């Protein structure tokens, strides 16, 4: 079996489990709607201000629900010691990391596909930009967020209070993603061209590359112990 098919096997395993249990995705979906509702009440969002805060609302909702879901990525594997089983499989450790990233990324994309249209309706936001650019921004933002989160959730799964620890170690690290994603989403939503967000796209790209490459090197150390 090649490296890629090993990864796909691991991905398939996790997706089947999630499809049958529907444990994480349902929570992520509900939470991604619930957070904007809370924000709508607390920010007293009148129609004029919505335009300014809407990108922020989107990304706060997505990161919060993402963290909620990613907490389980490795905790679920700890039950019945299945993480040990996973480590004994004849695959490179990095394959486990990439498989988990793909699983989490798929779940995030699914959450986004369901909640984003709902948010547009809920906040009565008139979309004037290009869908393709928005998809690119969300793709890059989600990728950066997911790759770091997956790595840090593996790290925090080693501790007893991992659910409490993950948000605290994750949020300072993902601040560049949040800034770049919110800024570029804001520009895209009001219908600017891709040229205006070029520097943000570049930043997201650089972040994605760094935080895919570094966990790729370090993941082995996290799992071995």
């Amino acid at each position, binding site marked *: 079996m090649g490296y890629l098919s090993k990864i796909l096997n691991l991905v398939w395993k996790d997706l089947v489990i999630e499809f049958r249990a529907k444990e994480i995705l349902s929570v992520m979906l509900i939470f991604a709607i619930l957070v904007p509702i809370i924000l709508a009440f607390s920010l007293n969002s009148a129609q004029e201000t919505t335009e300014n805060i809407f990108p922020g609302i989107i990304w706060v909702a997505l990161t919060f629900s993402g963290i909620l879901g990613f907490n389980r990525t490795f905790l679920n594997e700890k039950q019945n010691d299945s993480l040990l089983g996973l480590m004994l499989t004849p695959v490179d450790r990095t394959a486990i990391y990439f498989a988990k990233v793909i699983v989490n990324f798929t779940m995030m994309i699914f959450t986004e596909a369901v909640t984003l249209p709902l948010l547009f309706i809920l906040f009565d936001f008139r979309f004037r930009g290009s869908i393709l650019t928005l998809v690119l921004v969300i793709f890059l933002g989600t990728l950066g967020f997911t790759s*770091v989160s997956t*790595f*840090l959730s593996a*790290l*925090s799964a*080693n*501790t*007893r*209070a991992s659910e409490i*620890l993950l948000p*605290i*170690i994750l*949020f*300072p*690290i993902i*601040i*560049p993603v949040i*800034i*770049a994603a919110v*800024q570029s989403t804001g520009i895209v939503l009001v219908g600017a061209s891709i040229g205006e967000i070029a*520097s*943000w796209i570049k*930043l997201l790209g*650089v*972040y994605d590359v*760094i*935080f895919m490459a*570094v*966990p790729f090197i*370090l993941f082995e*150390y*996290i799992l*071995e*112990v």
Partner: protein
Amino acid sequence: MSKKLKGHTFLGWLTFAMIIFALYMALVHAPVERVMGVVQKIFYFHVASAWNAFFAFFVVFVASIIFLKTRNRKWDIIAKVSAEIGVVFTTIVLVSGPIWARSAWNRWWVWEPRLTTTLILWFIYLAYILIRSASIEEDKKGVLAAAFGIIGFLDVPVVFFAIRWWGSLYHPEVVKGSGGGLHPAMFQALIACVVAFTFLYFYFLQKGIFIELSRLRIEKIKEELRAEN
């Protein structure tokens, strides 16, 4: 052991003398700034603390890499102690900054790249300390903290650029600035402070390592006693 402690005392007194000298340079030798007045004196300690903090976190980064490669416990201890010292100095930066800013900019806080990056830096290394204090086995702890120490340090420049593009407004470019710049006496005072604070860092590092090693020894003695009984 007593020979080692003598080294500590020597470095301690040296640091003490350096700090006194730095205080003289900053408070007496350097002239009072014309516009900002006495408050400007904070600048010397503010910059020196910031230098120390960044230096300490750099040491964490390097020590973490070496620890992952060699698995020598010494590097783990250095990283741990250095992170703690770095957080202390970052706290000093974050406290002294607003005091100065209040009189210079008439605002406690502005969301300016360097300030905001320092704040995020503080949070990153608080997280690092939290990983250290989480309930994990001792051997695992070093590896996890080292991994986070590397990730955290690499994140800092990205954070800085992100925040800079996000909106840059304030912060005097004192040293780099072409026209204005610093009065020579002020510059000397700044150098004296930075050097003295660097000595302070190494003094703290030495003490911290000593405490950690003592703790390990006590653990070992305890285990031996338990085995005997």
